[in-house]
């Protein structure tokens, strides 16, 4: 596609519900990143995929957060038993980077999650 797309753009969940956020990266991009952006703050790294392999999940805040990219393209970030502190914008980014190069991370528009 022309850019990174994310769906849904907005999600309202009741506390305790499970949610799934989708990211469609730029076609052919090897690397995929998830970031969490609290209101008025900078994005914070959650997890990283190189193709289908999740190489870094050090930023996931708890075991309620789970991400997958089974075929090396589309990725889903799942949050189980949502809490109010999970309310944030979740950004997805992709890049052609495979290590050591200077390529760019292209960001999607984000999914704004509100947990009531």
């Amino acid at each position: 596609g022309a850019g990174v797309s994310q769906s849904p753009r907005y999600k309202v969940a009741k506390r305790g519900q499970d949610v799934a956020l989708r990211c469609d990266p730029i076609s052919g991009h090897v690397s995929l990143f998830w970031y969490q952006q609290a209101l008025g703050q900078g994005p914070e790294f959650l997890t990283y995929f190189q193709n289908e392999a999740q190489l870094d999940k050090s930023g996931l805040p708890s075991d309620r957060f789970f991400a997958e990219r089974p075929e090396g393209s589309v990725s889903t970030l799942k949050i189980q038993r949502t809490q109010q502190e999970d309310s944030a914008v979740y950004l997805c980014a992709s890049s052609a980077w495979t290590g050591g190069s200077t390529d760019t991370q292209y960001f999607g528009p984000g999914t704004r999650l509100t947990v009531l």
Partner: protein
Amino acid sequence: AQTVTQSQPEMSVQEAETVTLSCTYDTSESDYYLFWYKQPPSRQMILVIRQEAYKQQNATENRFSVNFQKAAKSFSLKISDSQLGDAAMYFCAYRIHGSSNTGKLIFGQGTTLQVKP
């Protein structure tokens, strides 16, 4: 641990004037990249400019330029001839160089730039 600090939560500039946004970072690495990203209210993050730490020459992209001071760990963004479309939140970001790392970006807290007509 690497950290990025933007000490100016908000800045304003008159249209056609010049403004400088500040950024400092802390790292023990010698090889890394620095970035400025722009995030308009629509929230699509866009890369403005990039600097490789091994390059002494400051990066320039049209009206955007940086002042990279490696010893001081400072990386400021200068916007010349400011336009109304420059109004956005600007993030400074850092990434370690090398194939042994994931390439994740570490962001500062952001600076909201207002452009006055």
